């Protein structure tokens, strides 16, 4: 131990300080990169000769793996398909560092929900789409999806799949659950879950209280969050989930939940007692969208893929597999011959009676700061 005299320790300390200082200086020069660049200098993604390789980031179980194989063999584009989006916020946290530097991390196409698409666009992370490159897409897109409020001209988004958020019920254990308000019935204490995505859960609770979510104020959001918070404190709500509410329901640990229609179709097939029920006060309608991030290495291939999945026969394969509401016209006609069960399923091809009471998924009103306050209040309920 005698090798390290006090003097040498000091020397070592000075050495380390010098190393640290040089790193700090280098980092200052390089800008912390946490700030957004805005979308004034937005670029338009170019199309053209589609070849080379394509990298797609999507949600788990959101495509039939056969579709990727067939796309590869038909176009010769080598496709890397990653299921790395599990939650909009978490994905944002993961890519934000790269995206803010104009680096897509090699991704050519990403799929996120409406509000996250809008947020990324506002930050300048997303390229504008050239509609002349997307003939198949716009020829086959269902009319009701052509001009959503957040992107009226579909300037930067192309819907991937749509779905409804509503009630999932074990009809054998909780037959009389028809409204979101029934989730607050003490009869089901500790047997109820809600979704951990605020934009899924809170608007439904507001609607159940007679508030129109599309015009709700910050106060309305806070009231609904408080209502949920009280239910958490009393032990009424067991926990908040992602898709995993499904397992809890199969076991019967949970008898009623806020859930997604697509999961409803898949679970009904496994356990006919579990049903998606459109809430009496209305349901929430959302889409996940394909976006080309700034810095995408191969936008022509991304356009090629978008057009490919908008061919009804290719889309039919995806619909059969994921069971969400398809954004493509003519899919039902393809499926009527192939798989009449799916073609007649009211959740996959919802009739007007199911969707008429739906509102499009909304974010809290106000600027970034106010939205953050609401999000924080909801998170505080989650981490009670």
């Amino acid at each position, binding site marked *: 131990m005698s*090798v*390290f005299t006090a003097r040498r320790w000091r020397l*070592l300390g000075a050495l*380390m300080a010098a*190393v*640290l200082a040089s*790193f*700090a200086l280098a*980092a200052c020069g390089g800008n*912390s990169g*946490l*700030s*957004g660049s805005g979308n004034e200098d937005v670029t338009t993604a170019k199309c053209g000769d589609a070849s080379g390789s394509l990298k797609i980031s999507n949600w788990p179980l959101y495509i039939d793996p056969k579709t990727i194989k067939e796309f590869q063999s038909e176009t010769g584009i080598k496709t890397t398909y990653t299921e790395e989006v599990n*939650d909009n*916020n*978490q994905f*944002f*946290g993961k890519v*934000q560092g790269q995206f803010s530097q104009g680096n897509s991390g090699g991704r050519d196409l990403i799929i996120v929900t409406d509000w996250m698409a809008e*947020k990324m666009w*506002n*930050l300048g992370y997303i390229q504008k789409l050239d509609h002349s490159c997307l003939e198949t897409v716009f020829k086959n897109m269902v009319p009701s999806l052509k001009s959503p409020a957040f992107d009226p001209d579909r300037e930067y988004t192309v819907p991937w799949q749509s779905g409804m958020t509503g009630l999932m019920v074990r009809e054998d254990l909780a037959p009389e659950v028809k409204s979101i308000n029934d989730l607050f019935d003490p009869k089901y204490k*500790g047997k109820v879950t809600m979704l951990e995505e605020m934009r899924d859960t809170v608007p439904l609770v507001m609607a159940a209280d007679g508030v129109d979510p599309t015009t709700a104020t910050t106060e309305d959001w806070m009231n609904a969050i408080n209502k949920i918070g009280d239910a*958490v*404190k009393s*032990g009424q*709500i*067991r*926990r*908040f989930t992602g898709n995993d509410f499904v*397992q809890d329901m199969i*076991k*019967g*640990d949970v008898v009623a939940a806020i859930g997604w229609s697509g999961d409803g179709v898949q679970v009904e097939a496994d356990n006919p007692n579990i049903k998606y029920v459109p809430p009496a006060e209305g349901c929430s309608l959302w889409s996940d969208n394909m976006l080309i991030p700034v810095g995408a290495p191969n936008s022509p291939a991304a356009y090629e893929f978008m057009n490919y999945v908008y061919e009804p026969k290719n889309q039919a394969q995806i619909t059969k597999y994921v069971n969400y509401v398809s954004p493509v016209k003519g899919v039902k006609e393809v499926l009527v011959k192939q798989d009449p069960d799916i073609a007649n399923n009211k959740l996959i091809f919802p009739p007007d009676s199911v969707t008429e009471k739906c509102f499009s998924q909304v974010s809290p009103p106000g600027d*970034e*700061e106010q939205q*953050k306050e609401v*999000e*924080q209040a909801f*998170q505080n*309920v*989650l*981490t*009670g």
Partner: protein
Amino acid sequence: MNTFRQRLVPYALLGPGLIWLTIFFVIPMYYMLELSLKTGSLEAGFQMTWAFSNYTDAISQYSTQFWRAFYYAGIASFFCLLIGYPLAYAIAFKAGRWKNLMLFAVVAPFFTTYLIRTVAWKTILDDSSPVVSILKTLHIVPPDGRVLATSAAVIAGLTYNFLPFMVLPLFAALERLDRRLLEAGNDLYATSPQTFWRVTLPLTMPGIVAGVLLTFIPAAGDYVNVIFLGGTSQAMIGNVIQSKYLVVNDYPDAAALSFTLLAIILVALIIYIKFAGTSALMGEEEEAH
């Protein structure tokens, strides 16, 4: 020249470790510290405003989750010790030729990932599982009660996941215990329990101290067990930090919370080591002198 080279040897040996620590620990820590004093949003950028209020807010707003984290981690460490000490004792003294196999069994769970092991507990403890029905017939769990999504489930998960970190240092301490001292105890008319309390336990203190540190510190910062086994009222401070970072994207608050956690653990550590004595941690060296 020769002596100069000799002088350089210790620095050269420290070099790789130091560079590693600097790049992957000191520098990130420095940025975290800087970040924890900023305000702003991810979209507009974070500005340095020396916002020490981030810290006071963090503590006042989330004191419940801090307490809960230390409470859960403390109980889990206690149970680890309670289960781990006899186990390590048995492996060290009684296992004979099964010793290696038993040690392997202690480490075996690490061959599956942490997440999968925790998810497995979800199945073990779900409302209709045999384990829960047995607990109900024994009246440990009330007839309309549940185990999953309660504190008990989270503590059970933590205990299970960190048990090997307790067993291994305890085993190392017991293994190198000089058996002749135990014989001497018997020769001096001490009963077995007396020998245990006055010889074995004090001499294996370093293992206990190390084991408690290795279980308590990671358990206090854990958030995975709560996600799978907890409900809405079990969130630990790790869950708050995770939600601040990944959901609300409030990096300064998250950084302030992380540093507060770090500081509390450091202070607790210092008190603990003072109390347990540095000799307990470095018992071997003390003996050698």
